[in-house]
């Protein structure tokens, strides 16, 4: 909640520094973002990565998978709710069924029996819902500890965290905090390989991660089939993929940045 109150400040910052040099137009706050990125990296190197590495080395893969499944299952109702908010009622129903099957037959979500039955896990959150509703992503942001985001996704995350996270309801508070911590460590442990690959692939980690994040989010908003960018050898993604035979024009979010207030 405290977080939501700080949103206007972020927006103000965004507006204030909007006009800087010739950097990427999607990232007007690059200098500030880079500073936060360096901070996050330092924290990660010093604490998160060593802890996650130890966690992975100590716990067997089977156990780590149970942990992932457990938290993944708790997320499914909110995923279903977002499906419904986006008008994807069948997907929403399936996510609900996942929760029912996995919580019961799957023993409190420890086993992802729904996937074995062919009911697939979806990836939804409120940031995607906002995107689906036509809200542009706004400037790219690197949040302290939470890393890559955009103005829109930050707002979305606030809603997810406040309303869509059952772990927040865990009581006593000690149990809740332990659950938060366990989830955090497990998530970081699962990203160990990805971060190693990023480390190797990127000339400039900041730029590589930013572009990957923005591409990924765009892909998720369109559920895996964003309008295809034409294969062209000239510059940037500026050109709009207008020609592509749009399969479901009705559902497509409005153009690009529809001014993220």
């Amino acid at each position, binding site marked *: 909640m405290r977080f939501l109150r700080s949103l206007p400040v972020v927006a103000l910052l965004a507006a204030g520094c909007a006009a800087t040099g010739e950097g990427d137009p999607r990232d007007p706050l690059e200098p500030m973002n880079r500073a936060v990125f360096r901070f996050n990296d330092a924290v990660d190197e010093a604490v998160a990565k060593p802890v996650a590495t130890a966690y992975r080395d100590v716990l067997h893969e089977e156990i780590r998978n149970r942990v992932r499944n457990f938290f993944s299952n708790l997320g499914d109702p909110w995923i279903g709710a977002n499906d419904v908010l986006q008008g994807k009622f069948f997907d929403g129903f399936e996510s609900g069924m996942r929760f029912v099957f996995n919580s019961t037959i799957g023993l409190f979500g420890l086993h992802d029996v729904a996937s074995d039955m062919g009911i697939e896990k979806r990836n939804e959150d409120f940031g995607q819902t906002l995107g689906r509703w036509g809200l542009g992503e706004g400037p790219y942001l690197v949040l302290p500890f939470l890393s890559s985001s955009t103005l829109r996704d930050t707002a979305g995350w606030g809603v997810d965290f406040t309303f869509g996270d059952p772990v927040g309801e865990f009581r006593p508070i000690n149990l809740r905090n332990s659950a938060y911590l366990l989830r955090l460590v497990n998530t970081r442990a699962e990203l160990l390989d990805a971060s*190693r690959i990023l480390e*190797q692939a990127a000339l400039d980690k900041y730029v590589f991660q930013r572009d990957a994040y923005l*591409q990924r989010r765009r*892909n998720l908003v369109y559920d*895996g089939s964003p309008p295809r*960018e034409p*294969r062209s050898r000239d510059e940037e993604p500026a050109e709009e993929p207008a020609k592509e035979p749009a399969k479901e024009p009705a559902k497509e979010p409005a153009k690009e940045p529809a001014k993220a207030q």
Partner: protein
Amino acid sequence: MKTILSGLLGGLASVLLASAHGQELAPDVLVKNVTTEVVELITKDKEIASGNRAKLIQVIEARVLPHFNFGSMTALAMGQSWNKATPEQKKRLTEEFKTLLVRTYASALAAYSQQRFDFRPLRARPTDTDVTVNVRVIQSGAQPVPIDYSMEKTASGWKVYDVMVGGVSLVANYRTEFSATVREVGIDGLIKNLQAKNRSFDAAPPAEKK
């Protein structure tokens, strides 16, 4: 009876035709074959499984590399700057970019553990020369990760010119990096950066899994 027979013969003829043009494997079949083959190789080979990076790179160079069109990939990643590069610069760029991608691919493969692959049927017309082959990596408790190979038809069979993982295009991702670098330090500067990056692997190979 006659129709069945002619159908059979027709089928036989097309099989023969396909095998006559060895490289003309359909793009989705090619992806499936290569993926299955490589995964089997790396899971069965004890040295690779225990982190022998040089050997893993050998496998990639022998089995995977021939199916990539690094010229196209580099040109796409360079965007407008490609036309400003001299033939010599183009050659060196392609070479360095190839090395970088092979090593990155090796780390991605090293992270492989028991995930299942779901090879999606190809949705393309037989006349298409530019297709996307969809594969999905399936893992319990997580959304399947799509891997999409953009492939073009060339004289020597189908070649990959871009890979998208979870909707992130490798080529598009490098395009921003490359154009920023070229703007700052020029094409030769970019070549130097790539070289330095590639050399840093040799100096200190990052810790492997296990």
